[in-house]
């Protein structure tokens, strides 16, 4: 509980001071993203209609640590670059990312399953700061429906092993701490190896419960 509060505090503190990185591509491009582990599987695609705005669709599967709760969410999404700071050797971004969609849930009770369908809204904010050698990102996203609160908070930090040229692949070490309210009491900590190239972005790691994690992004 203390770590959860600490994580939320850190997120709020950073959001007040800064913002996040890359949930959309350049003007006129599609971005496909996937984030998969045992309890959280999310995939989305969006299209940038302007340099700052993107519309898309997303599908998310969520499950509690004890497997007693499952959720699936299909939503329409909107992403907005609220502000970007371009500095000589770094960049920082503040993003809004939100959606509205259909939530299907199932809670395991002593007497059987309680299944339900609800409308869920997911407004969120993200901040990132990045140089060619270090990276920081914090996200807070509301996942709300009537009587449901699965707010998502994450903090990420990392460093690249070396600087690389534009057309070469650059390896990074990234450490993430995140929590999904109402689905897990724990702060999930996952160290990951990230590979960035001008054409792809992939991350793979294993959390402290030895569950694998895989993320990717692709712009076309």
């Amino acid at each position, binding site marked *: 509980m203390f770590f959860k509060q600490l994580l939320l505090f850190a997120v709020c503190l950073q959001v007040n001071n800064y913002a996040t990185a890359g949930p959309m591509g*350049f003007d006129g491009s599609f971005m496909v993203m996937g984030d998969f582990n045992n309890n959280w599987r999310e995939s989305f695609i969006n299209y940038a209609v302007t340099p700052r705005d993107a519309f898309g669709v997303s599908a998310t599967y969520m499950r509690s640590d004890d497997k007693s709760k499952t959720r699936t969410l299909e939503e329409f999404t909107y992403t907005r670059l609220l502000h970007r700071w371009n500095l000589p050797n*770094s960049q920082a971004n503040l993003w809004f990312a939100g959606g509205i969609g259909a939530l299907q849930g199932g809670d395991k009770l002593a007497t059987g399953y309680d299944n339900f369908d609800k409308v869920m809204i997911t407004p969120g904010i993200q901040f990132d700061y990045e140089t060619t050698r270090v990276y920081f990102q914090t996200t807070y996203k509301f996942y709300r429906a009537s009587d449901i609160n699965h707010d998502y908070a994450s903090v990420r930090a990392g460093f690249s092993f070396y600087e690389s040229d534009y057309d070469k692949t650059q390896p990074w070490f990234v450490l993430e701490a995140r929590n999904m309210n109402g689905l897990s009491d724990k702060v999930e900590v996952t160290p990951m190896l990230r590979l960035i190239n*001008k054409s792809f972005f992939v991350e793979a790691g294993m959390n402290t419960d030895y569950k694998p994690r895989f993320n990717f992004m692709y712009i076309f």
Partner: protein
Amino acid sequence: MKKLFLASIITVLISNAAFATETIKANVNGMVCAFCAQGIEKKMRALSQTKDVYVNLKQRVVAVEVKEGQTISDETVKEIISNAGYSVTSITKSDQAVATIKAQLEAKQEAK
């Protein structure tokens, strides 16, 4: 004979001027990630006048070589880079090809 020689010289000078290599070099702030900066390269290459493009993250340079006999305005380069989400701090023109600029910048990096 003298007139013919002079005319030949002028013709050579004019043709060299018309087909001289022109590369636009932009210094760019905020360009730290290849995955994020790919939009600059793709948009520059989409211009029919573009012969070649080079992006250098370490030295924050975007170089666009223009096809012989064609032009790209500084404003166009600035607009593409700004729309990709970055800030242009300065623009210069060079008569060197992108390949030469790339070799020079990479040699400079290795010397550091």
